[in-house]
């Protein structure tokens, strides 16, 4: 009699509980981690591979992408010698919470509360902090007189020049220290790159390109021509490019060499089969190319079958409205 009662009062509820709590298995890819919460509290980071979850009490709060990849960040509202500017930076990073916290549970429980988008915003904040410190340090090393011209004030942030490299080096050192606090690890193998320098439109409008070139030549007499082009074109808005299409006819399988000449106003590109000669006069962009000739790839990749499959016909249920050829 007692055994019968035990079966009813303990066994059946236990069975119901086990059914209610049944397991499920989630397969986590190599490049992802699942943030698993149990009964509302952080439980663990699951993956890669199969992750065993309890049906009712475990919840996947979010997925974190842990692969190492480059990312662009726009950092606006910076100042150099009182001139506002912004950088678009490119850096390689991964969201590796376990490595960043050395698997300390409390720290991990705090970091897992943010998704990848929020972490990107945090990176921007850390980047700003690091850049501000680094820029201030460079300004203190090289104080300028109050009469200094705009372009002189801007030189330290022009990509590719020594000061900007110093700014990035300092910023990187600080980021390596601060980014783990938000679960981010910088990749040592790739440098931080300035992709774009953003200046206010009023500044761009008043930008005297010839003066810039002249000043750069005075300060950096050995700066190669193509570096000069790169420096000038990296300043957003100060874009002297009026490059037409390149004619690559006649290469016939030989190696081609590209060459740029900058006359202060225009960049003149040239493609030849011989290594570029410094003495040769620049040639005009190949405007003579027939306007409708097939473009020799024009910087675009070949269209693969997968590319073509992206394009679809308007779905059938809308076919009544489709404009067929």
């Amino acid at each position, binding site marked *: 009699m007692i055994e019968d009662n035990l079966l009813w009062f303990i066994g059946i509820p236990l069975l119901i509980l086990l059914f209610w709590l049944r397991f499920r298995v989630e397969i986590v890819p190599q490049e992802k981690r699942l943030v698993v919460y149990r009964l509302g509290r952080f439980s663990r980071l699951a993956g890669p591979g199969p992750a065993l979850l309890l049906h009712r009490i475990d919840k996947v709060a979010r997925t974190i992408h842990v692969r190492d990849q480059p990312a662009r960040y726009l950092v606006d509202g910076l100042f150099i010698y009182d001139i506002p500017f912004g950088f678009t930076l490119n850096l390689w990073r991964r969201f590796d919470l376990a490595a960043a916290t050395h698997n300390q549970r409390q720290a991990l429980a705090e970091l897992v509360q943010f998704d990848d988008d929020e972490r990107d915003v945090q990176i921007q904040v850390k980047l700003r902090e690091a850049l501000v410190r680094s820029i201030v340090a460079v300004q203190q090393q090289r104080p300028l007189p109050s009469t200094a011209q705009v372009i002189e004030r801007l030189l330290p942030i022009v990509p590719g020049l020594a000061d900007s490299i110093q700014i990035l080096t300092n910023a990187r050192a600080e980021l390596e220290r601060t980014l783990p606090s938000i679960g981010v690890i910088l990749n040592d193998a790739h440098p931080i790159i300035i992709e*774009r320098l953003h200046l206010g439109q009023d500044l761009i409008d008043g930008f005297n390109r010839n003066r810039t070139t002249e000043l750069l030549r005075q300060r950096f007499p050995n700066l190669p021509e193509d570096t000069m082009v790169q420096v000038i074109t990296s300043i957003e808005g100060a874009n002297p490019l009026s490059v037409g299409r390149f004619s690559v006819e006649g290469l016939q399988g030989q190696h081609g060499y590209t060459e740029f000449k900058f006359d202060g106003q225009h960049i003149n590109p040239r493609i030849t089969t011989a290594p570029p000669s410094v003495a040769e006069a620049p040639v005009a962009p190949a405007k003579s190319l027939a306007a409708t000739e*097939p473009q020799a790839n*024009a910087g675009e990749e070949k*269209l693969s079958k997968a*590319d073509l499959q992206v*394009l679809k016909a308007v779905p059938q249920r809308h076919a009544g409205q489709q404009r067929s050829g």
Partner: protein
Amino acid sequence: MRLIFDFARQGESLCLMGVAGTGKSNITNFLRYDPYQHKPLYLKDETPLIHFPVVDGNTWGETPRSLWRMMLTALTECLDGVAPPPPDGKIIQLSENAKALSDLKTLLNWVCGQFEHRVMFILDDFDAILRVGPLSMLEQLNALRSEGKRNQLSYLLFTKKLPHILGQAHFQPGTSKFYDLFSNHVYALGLYNFDDARQMLLALNENAGRPLSTKDLPLIQSISGGHARLLKIIFELFCQGSIPASPSIDFFIEQPDVRNEFQRIFQALHPDEQAVALRLVAQQHTRADADLINHLTLRGLLIASNPPQWFSPLMVGFLQRLAASTHA
């Protein structure tokens, strides 16, 4: 239009890819101004709650700030009857770009949050913007949508080339949240079908000072092949009265406006599409070209793939001349 309205209602984004001159601007005008009152037909009671601001990519100043300003202006213009958001004197932005973006966010939050309206930005002629970027600007378009407006803010892109090819310098499928918004919804915008082309011609004829004889209209339609701008150009040639009794294909191709239009169509194609088009008219295409031929058919440039048949006899003539000059 039904496809677009369905997407706008669901807050989903899409991309319509069409060759130059296929009437993309007509669609944007219909969406913006709705001259034929299509919206109440499809959107019913939701008509005043869904806005279609039009951003013309051709006027972009190649900076993020310029894009935010264009979007802000377009949205402001189409918000008839919606009170503007109250000014917030506390916000002080350091850069013009941040200020422009902040203004746009404020208005979107106001329209989508306060009034619970939906907004579908029409990003017209977006090829250059996708090509130039930068990625941070494009991703910001997704971020705008993420901030509590996931089902209320969407985009309709018009491009002439495949969007992921245009933006290949910035994003690859699966790595850009902006591209992911519409990556599964890139649709071919074909040419007008017979009835639509006929309707357009009749409308042109009705509005012409000196209407053409109805026997000229089928000829115009057959040689234009449903290409909107070509229909208009050839219609105007007929209106000028300079068409000989039995005009040849060469006669039309030699007209500057017609030639320019075909050049525009051809130049807006991908180099691989251009190459296969030239091989087709030279009868030198091979089995390896099958995918691209089907692609051109989907785009409406070919109306049959086997044997290949171009949408207009003038296109054949133009390509033959081009192939001959290339070989020469």
